[in-house]
């Protein structure tokens, strides 16, 4: 390995009296494709160095070779855990460059699916955090409920995990199938039940392992570039859905949960509260969903993208996601920069939080950030 890293040590020095090197990852269950090199002194972490790159696929460059409809499918893969949210960021960038009018019903469908995807992503986080803390019940309960959401995704988009660019430039690939509304309502009822179960576990495992662990102050959160639930758990009520509304978010009534503590437990409370808010959003959107059916999608974006540049931001489950797209009037983008929340959360924030932590707290800190190597490496 010739990669130059700051804490690279030789085998001899691993056993030196001043510490011990521990490689956390990259095949750790639940993390996958990402590692952190820890230097320990006794039970305490004295240095941490993130080791990204295992999932680098060069999306930004791949997109320069492809048309927007092909890129819509590619955008699924930006983060396996919340592919619909990434679909939406990409679609909006193309929409704005092309000055496309999105039908009202399609904008509602986009928001409903983006919020369900957020719920689904938060469920995975809950499951993986539980697993990391040795709380297998939480893991199994969460993944059981997640499947209900995936069933709905399959029913609407055709894909359980990857929707194949369902939220595409120009709207959505196809209208809701017959009976979708009823099925979503049933799903939300299940989600409410799930939240009650999560709450019942709270005072035991998760609180015991997460309270007071991995505290991130607001100043540090801003300096390290934290966004989304991580930033809100440190006390700043910032959310792109409210601060720079896109789609129909300015017409909806929802709250931005915040906490002051900044610890791993605060981050876990925030995500559960966000599931509640997402349920509220989906209910409102379903109530107001315009009745007029959508015409079948014509992939008219096969033509040229007008010359111009946009920077589009969205609030996804993990934080701020953005796409900078530059077009020179060809049928594919000249440059497509993808900004994901995890490049920040998994390198500066994680390294900062791990230094000084007890080695037993590493999993709690690591998964309280709800990391995703796919969106960090791109």
């Amino acid at each position, binding site marked *: *390995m*010739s*990669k*130059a*890293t*700051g804490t690279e040590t030789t085998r001899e020095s691993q056993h030196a009296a001043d510490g011990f090197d521990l490689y956390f990852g990259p095949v750790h269950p639940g993390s996958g494709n990402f590692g952190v090199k820890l230097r320990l002194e006794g039970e305490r972490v004295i240095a941490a160095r993130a080791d*990204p*790159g295992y999932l*680098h696929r*060069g999306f*930004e*460059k791949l997109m320069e*070779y492809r048309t927007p409809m092909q890129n819509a499918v590619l955008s699924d893969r930006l983060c396996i855990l919340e592919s619909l949210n990434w679909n939406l960021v990409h679609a909006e960038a193309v929409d*704005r460059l092309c*000055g496309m009018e999105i039908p009202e019903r399609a904008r509602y469908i986009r928001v409903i699916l983006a919020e369900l995807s957020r719920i689904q992503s938060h469920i995975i986080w809950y499951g993986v955090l539980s697993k990391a803390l040795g709380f297998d019940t939480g893991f199994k309960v969460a993944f059981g409920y997640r499947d209900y959401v995936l069933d709905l995704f399959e029913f609407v988009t055709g894909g359980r995990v990857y929707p194949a660019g369902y939220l595409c430039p120009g709207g959505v690939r196809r209208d809701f199938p017959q009976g979708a509304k009823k099925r979503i309502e049933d799903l939300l009822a299940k989600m409410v039940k799930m939240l009650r179960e999560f709450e019942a576990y709270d005072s035991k495992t998760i609180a015991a392992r997460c309270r007071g662990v991995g505290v991130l102050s607001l100043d540090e959160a*801003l*300096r*390290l*570039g934290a*966004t989304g639930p991580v930033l809100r758990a440190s006390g*700043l009520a*910032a959310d792109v859905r409210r*601060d*720079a509304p896109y789609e129909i978010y300015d017409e909806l009534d929802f709250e931005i949960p915040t906490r002051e503590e900044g610890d791993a437990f605060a981050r876990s409370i925030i995500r559960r509260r966000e599931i509640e808010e997402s349920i509220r959003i989906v209910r409102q959107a379903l109530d107001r969903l315009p009745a007029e059916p959508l015409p079948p999608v014509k992939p008219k974006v096969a033509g040229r993208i007008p010359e111009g*540049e*946009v*920077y*589009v*931001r969205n609030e996804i489950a993990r934080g*701020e996601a*953005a796409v*900078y797209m*530059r077009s020179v009037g060809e049928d594919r983008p*000249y*440059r497509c*920069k993808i*900004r994901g929340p995890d*490049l*920040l959360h998994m*390198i*500066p924030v994680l390294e*900062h939080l791990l230094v000084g932590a007890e080695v037993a707290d590493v999993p709690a800190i690591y998964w309280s950030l709800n990391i995703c190597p796919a969106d960090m*490496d791109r």
Partner: protein
Amino acid sequence: MTAIESEGRRAELLKRIGSSFGTEPRIAEDGTAWISVPAGDLGKYLALARDDGFDHCSAISVTDWPEEEAFELTYHLWSYAGRVLLTVKSRIDRRKATVDSAVPLWGPSAGIHERELHELFGVRFSGNPDLAPLFLESWDGPPPFRKDFDWRAYVRETFYEEDDPREQSYWD
């Protein structure tokens, strides 16, 4: 914050940028603000933006223009209080691609983007304490996201055999 208060703060911030930068930013249809500055003064303007209240460095990006021998740097900045997205753009010479780092202004949140751009485009950010490669291992070729680096040709020549009948289609 009500919608009217928010709009008031936004207008005030846009006015403040206009006066400190000495030029009005272009406001796009989606409400984002864009401003181009000369390369020599980039550091000065970024510091002005930081002082004006752009406390979040959302991203830094590079667009490669090989025919004009230029890299275009774009700094996407957000103000949590003013709720304005400002993009500061600047063109630098591609042959001497060095600029001052934004780490003194935004800390590690800018540093990590610079680290990525250094690896993928070969832009040097002087003053950034950590420009170690992020993604690539044992890579000694040119920075791979530059426009004049042909990925497809590289993959074909590195990983496929022209005289292997099963891999012929990659060479057609």
